[in-house]
């Protein structure tokens, strides 16, 4: 296990040095908030953030992704025959991903990479990515990662973990992929025991700072149809305006739509993130819609995350506790409270 200490300036330089081998993505201050951007694309990296507005989900699972291309030209010998769109699977590194967002990728992996079908695009994007986590010295008030199997310095799901020690970063290699990147990163010095100890103190202090506890222990034993018919869904759904912000921001929401787009005689088959909050999501060709009511859609989102996923995969809940949906819901629907309703029902 490699442990190196970089001054913050040297860390940026090291990333710049790695940019020839990896496509590097880092948090960048973007107006009032931070988001992941490609290194060298305008503003420089900024590691002073609580969490990015959007998780880096789109770097593994693009919000809009070309699947196939085809010609609609009748004179073309291969008219109407779909060809896979070319992709860039060269190595990429997501630097500064929070442990919850990396955990989310593992939650989602069970869907995209299952024993029966492997989603070729998700799997290949994922496999070409090195996840360099940045532990959370100051978790947000809405964070509840510790309730769902994570933690502000949880190294699970990461290739490298960064500890922000003030003037320096301690970088710890956790996987072969991570070790390989650290070997190529210039300008660091081997970590001494004092730095390692500082890192441990930091991690413990951060964990103690998360005081939201969300109960999920009884979800598995609940009878699905009893939860489905529970009366609290009326209250949960009452204020919802079906805006879809929660599903858009959620690092574990994976639903997508497939659409064909045509320009002239050239066609593309594209997949786009979709949302169970929208009635069109389930509208049949016949006009029938099994989820035409707002309540049904709100219930679907929470039941999927906190019951269906739990039953199907035996891998805990489909939530990494990042708290984005809590912070950004315009009507203050709170998944922590819904989990409590469900768990205590």
């Amino acid at each position, binding site marked *: 296990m490699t442990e190196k200490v970089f001054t913050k300036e040297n860390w940026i330089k090291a990333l710049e040095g790695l940019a020839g081998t990896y496509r590097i993505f880092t948090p960048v201050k973007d107006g009032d908030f931070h988001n992941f951007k490609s290194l060298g694309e305008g503003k420089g990296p900024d590691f002073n953030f609580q969490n990015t507005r959007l998780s880096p989900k789109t770097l593994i699972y693009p919000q809009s992704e070309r*699947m*196939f291309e*085809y010609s*609609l030209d009748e004179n073309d010998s291969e*008219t*109407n*025959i*779909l060809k*896979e769109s070319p992709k860039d699977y060269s190595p990429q590194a997501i630097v500064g991903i929070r442990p919850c967002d990396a955990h989310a990728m593992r939650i989602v992996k069970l*869907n*995209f990479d*299952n024993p*029966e*079908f*492997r*989603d*070729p695009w998700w*799997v*290949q994007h994922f496999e070409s990515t090195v996840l360099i986590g940045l532990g959370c010295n100051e978790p947000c008030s809405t964070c509840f990662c510790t309730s769902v199997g994570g933690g502000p310095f949880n190294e699970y799901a990461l290739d490298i973990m960064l500890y922000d020690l003030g003037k320096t970063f301690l970088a710890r290699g956790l996987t072969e992929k991570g070790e390989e990147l650290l070997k190529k990163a210039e300008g660091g010095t081997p970590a001494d025991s004092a730095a390692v100890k500082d890192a441990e103190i930091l991690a413990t202090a951060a964990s103690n700072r998360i005081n939201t506890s969300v109960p999920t222990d009884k979800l598995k034993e609940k009878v*699905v*149809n009893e939860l*489905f018919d529970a009366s609290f869904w009326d209250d949960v759904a009452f204020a919802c305006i079906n805006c879809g912000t929660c599903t858009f921001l959620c690092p574990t929401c*994976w*639903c*997508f*739509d*497939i*659409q*064909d787009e*045509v320009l002239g005689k050239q*066609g593309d*088959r594209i*997949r786009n993130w*979709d949302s*169970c909050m929208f009635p069109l*999501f*389930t*509208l*049949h*060709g*016949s006009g*029938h819609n*099994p*989820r035409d009511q707002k309540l*049904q859609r709100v219930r*679907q989102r929470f*039941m*999927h995350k906190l*019951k*269906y*996923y739990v*039953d*199907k995969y035996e891998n805990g809940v489909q939530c990494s506790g990042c708290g984005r949906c809590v912070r950004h819901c315009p009507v203050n629907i709170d998944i922590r409270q819904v989990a409590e309703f469900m768990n205590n029902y």
Partner: protein
Amino acid sequence: MENPYLPYPVRIDKITTETEDRNLKTFRFVFLNPEDEEKFAYTPGQFAELSVPGKGEIPIGIASSPTEKGFVAFTVNKVGVVTNYLHNMKEGEVMGIRGPLGNWYPWKDMEGKNVIIVGGGFAFTTLRSSIIYMIQPENRSKFEDISVVYGARSPGLLLYRDELAEWEKRDDINMHITVDGTDDPDWKYNVGFVPTVTKEKITSSENAIAIVCGPPVMIKFTQPVLEELGFPPERIILSLEMRMKCGIGICGRCNIGEKYVCKDGPVFSLAQLKEMPGEY
């Protein structure tokens, strides 16, 4: 890496208009690459995504039987963007098929049993596949009595009329064709709703398994008839429809509880459905 979203290219070999309102057409497809036909090995009850480049994909039950070689067939109702376009396509044009997808009727459980098939309207497609499959000489002895109740609103809306007439003549399958109503004086089959005819013609649930496919209202009124006959929910088999995209249980839209209709279905027993949220 294998790509489960990539359709096999096919040529439209034959188009047949099935109903007098011209809303239902059967499309026969031939694979452009002969080896794809082997990869597309299917079992009656399964479906596929028909892929019309420039328009999109639609999940449609396979109407042909695996015992029919050299082509696959689908009967398509004209309802939306893709189906309207498909209905105007011509024989010889190239498009795609992705599949086979989903599960199938419980053929292993059906062996040695009386098979009761109850179908309504244009939901008869995978039932046609099943009947053709069962009456093949190499398969017929695996099943006991085969009874079919099939109805449509009027004679002109019945699918596969030539085949229905042929099956009527056979003595190894009991056909009960019906229409809701007709003013045709020469109509020689039943008149009445499917649940009513089922009640008249099917007299026993002994050693029997029932497959029911049709519009929701037909299913709703057929279910009590079968239960009265003594069919336990495990032996009432239904095939569901749902809006689908990926067809392989990944895109997330066709779930009922934790089950995806595209991958865990479309075939479910009534016993299974009773354990699942009633959201379909």
